[in-house]
């Protein structure tokens, strides 16, 4: 594709042993996981156990991705991208192929998970995503190329993991890697400056994508109106409309704002569900039910007092009877 001729991305057959030129670590290729514009990712076996290994052709773009992975590994307390192990070169038939090694995330694609487990997971997983994004933003980074393909759901309890962090951009710079459907520039609803609201637009579009799995193209003009109609037209999306609208129009400055409102919305929904099912919650209903037991206790106390009073009365009579 580029003007300078480069080595084609060669398929590395299963069972191949890759040995790093600089660090001398060896990896045994188990299977191909996927390939993108910059290289191919393989599952490999090593002394560290199972790892994901990305082989590319252009050492500058591979290095650029590694720069981001290293930065993300430095964020304390939260697991953002896949954990980074090392970068090296592999020499094969006299040609050098740069590669890097990272944690293998054994997860399920976001939408596959939601289809299997139920639509109610969208809101919950978005809450997780927004929490992680707010950490990323605080560290001065913007995800950039946020889309379902870059998100995996792993383990139990199900946790959202980020797969491809190649588009991650320092705050204030321009986003270079993006996917049109999730890019606010494409919809004419903003620029491509890396700022939190850029990612939050993409989050909203991920939710829209859940409602419209086949996606759709932009209209000739007035995409705002067009997108609002799309939200109205889907039963799944309608309930999220106030939040989606604000995110699409760039009204949230921070991921935490959007997260709070989504949280409130999901909670409100749960209360509604409870009311409909007529199950006693924590509110007035509960208080009314406990009150009669208090009354009973009080009447029991009165009974005791009366009984004691009676006994005392008869005992007095008995004593008086003895005297006479």
């Amino acid at each position, binding site marked *: *594709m*580029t*003007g*300078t001729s480069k080595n084609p991305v060669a398929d590395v057959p299963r069972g191949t042993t890759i040995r790093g030129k*600089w660090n001398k670590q060896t990896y045994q290729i188990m299977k191909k996981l996927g390939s993108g514009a910059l290289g191919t990712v393989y599952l490999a076996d090593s002394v560290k156990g199972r790892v994901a290994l990305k082989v590319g052709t252009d*050492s*500058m773009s591979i*290095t*650029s991705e*590694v*720069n981001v992975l*290293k930065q993300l590994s430095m964020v304390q307390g939260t697991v953002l991208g896949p954990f980074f192990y090392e*970068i*090296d*070169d592999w020499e094969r038939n006299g040609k*050098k192929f*740069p590669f890097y090694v990272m944690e293998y995330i054994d997860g399920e694609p976001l939408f596959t998970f939601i289809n299997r487990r139920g639509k109610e997971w969208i809101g919950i997983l978005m809450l997780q995503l927004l929490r992680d994004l707010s950490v990323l933003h605080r560290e001065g980074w913007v995800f950039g190329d946020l889309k379902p393909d870059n998100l995996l759901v792993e383990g139990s309890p199900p946790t959202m993991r980020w797969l491809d962090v190649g588009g991650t951009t320092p705050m*204030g*710079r*321009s*986003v*270079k890697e993006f996917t*049109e459907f999730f890019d606010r*520039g*494409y919809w004419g609803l903003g*620029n*491509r*400056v890396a700022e939190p609201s850029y990612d939050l637009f993409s989050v909203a579009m991920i939710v829209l994508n859940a409602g419209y799995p086949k996606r759709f193209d932009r209209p000739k003009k007035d995409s705002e109106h067009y997108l609002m109609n799309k939200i109205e037209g889907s039963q799944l999306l309608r309930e999220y409309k106030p939040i989606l609208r604000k995110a699409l129009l760039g009204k949230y400055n921070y991921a935490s704002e959007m997260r709070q409102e989504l949280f409130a919305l999901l909670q409100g929904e749960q209360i509604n569900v409870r009311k409909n099912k007529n199950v006693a919650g924590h509110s007035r209903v509960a208080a009314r039910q406990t009150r009669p037991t208090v009354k009973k206790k009080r009447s029991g106390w009165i009974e005791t007092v009366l009984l004691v009073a009676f006994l005392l009365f008869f005992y007095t009579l008995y004593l008086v009877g003895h005297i006479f």
Partner: protein
Amino acid sequence: MKKGTLRQILLITDGCSNQGEDPVAMAALAREHGMTVNVIGVLDENERTDGLKEIENIALSGGGIHQLVYAKQLSHTVQMVTRKAMTQTIQGFIHKELQSILGHDKEIEDLPPDKRGQVVEVVDELGETMDLEVLIMIDTSASMQHKLPTVEDALLDLSISLHSRIGENEYALYAFPGKRKQVERLMDWTPILKDIHTIFPKLTTGGITPTGPALKEAIDAYQKKRSKRGLLNDGYIEESSS
């Protein structure tokens, strides 16, 4: 530190040249002048790509990037090609610098991987902050007629991406063939690529494809711009020294 300016010619076409100078030679000339020539070939659905070897050759000799796309993907491609070409040019500078430090036969790959990270950071930094001039040259031969609305969208998209950078941008817009001449200027150098929706509907399409003369005109336009700036700079220096 003064960061210099990247100069690009972006050629959007759909076929072979059939009039005037050899475009591959003109691209080589542009490269000598310190410009990069990028070429995007816009295909119709089901169109075969074998007649488009010239596109690749122009980009190769112009030190740039070429890409063949269907009209639908044009927006994404135009901004991507422009940015990639910027990165490639900057990497070229850095490569030369490294050779002067490490020795003539050394490549970036000869650095240990950990050191490469710093080189990439410098490239990213320059790509974000350097000024950029793009001269856009649009093929308006008859077969391009129905693709022009898509070209318009793609250019707007390009300006969104470039304006999100920190560095300054300038654009000029030309069409070939023009109404009366082989090449026609649609828009002189401007920092904002706007009002193109008023220009595009007025474009008339013609039969010939004078790609070579178009590139020659682009080189001239850059030369004029540079000499104008030279005059301005001289004037400024005289003023400040008196």
